[in-house]
């Protein structure tokens, strides 16, 4: 079974530039998550999708971050414009979680995209 795919693996940009990350979840996984992991910290959830709808985006800085999951499969996360403090690893994860299923479903993580903002 293929895992969660992310691209690019590394990205270096200057502040005020734009950047986009792509994630392809495990086939059949309804739920997709984007996390931000700043160096020395644990991952922090930015946004959670159930199919193509947003479940939780309470910690997404909406003035500069946006995300979409068209057709309920792969997803893109965009930052525009980037700030120095956005330097982090951006992790994508997915879980099976069919609609209405109440028990916890394991999240499977991708390798992440390391973003450096200069």
């Amino acid at each position, binding site marked *: 079974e293929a895992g969660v795919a992310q691209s690019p693996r590394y990205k270096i940009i200057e502040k005020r530039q734009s950047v986009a990350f792509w994630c392809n979840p495990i086939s059949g996984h309804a739920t997709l998550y984007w996390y931000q992991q700043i160096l*020395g910290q644990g991952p922090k959830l930015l946004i959670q999708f159930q199919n193509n709808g947003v479940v939780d985006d309470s910690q997404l800085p909406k003035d500069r971050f946006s995300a979409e999951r068209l057709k309920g499969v792969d997803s893109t996360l965009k930052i525009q414009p980037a700030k120095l403090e956005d330097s982090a690893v951006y992790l994508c994860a997915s879980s099976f979680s069919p609609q209405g299923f109440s028990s916890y479903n394991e999240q499977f993580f991708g390798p992440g995209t390391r973003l450096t903002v200069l």
Partner: protein
Amino acid sequence: AQTVTQSQPEMSVQEAETVTLSCTYDTSENNYYLFWYKQPPSRQMILVIRQEAYKQQNATENRFSVNFQKAAKSFSLKISDSQLGDTAMYFCAFVNTGTASKLTFGTGTRLQVTL
């Protein structure tokens, strides 16, 4: 709001020895799950072990076991017979069963296994 605290930023253990990583959490909920995740230098996060709060028996997965103390809100990870491949960041994480699988992570413990 739930919080997860890992008070050991770094730990070191010799190969074949046993090491215990500490984790405490704070929640007002009664039904939840606790996890230990491993993040090797390649950065792929992998689930090591999980514990359902309603279960009194401590979870075990091969060389990995937990000591779950619900009243004390403590959830430590014991790695027996440590191997070089266990070198990684270890994150303790919490999810409330009622919050659509929103994981809250601790700050991590960097474990170095030495010869």
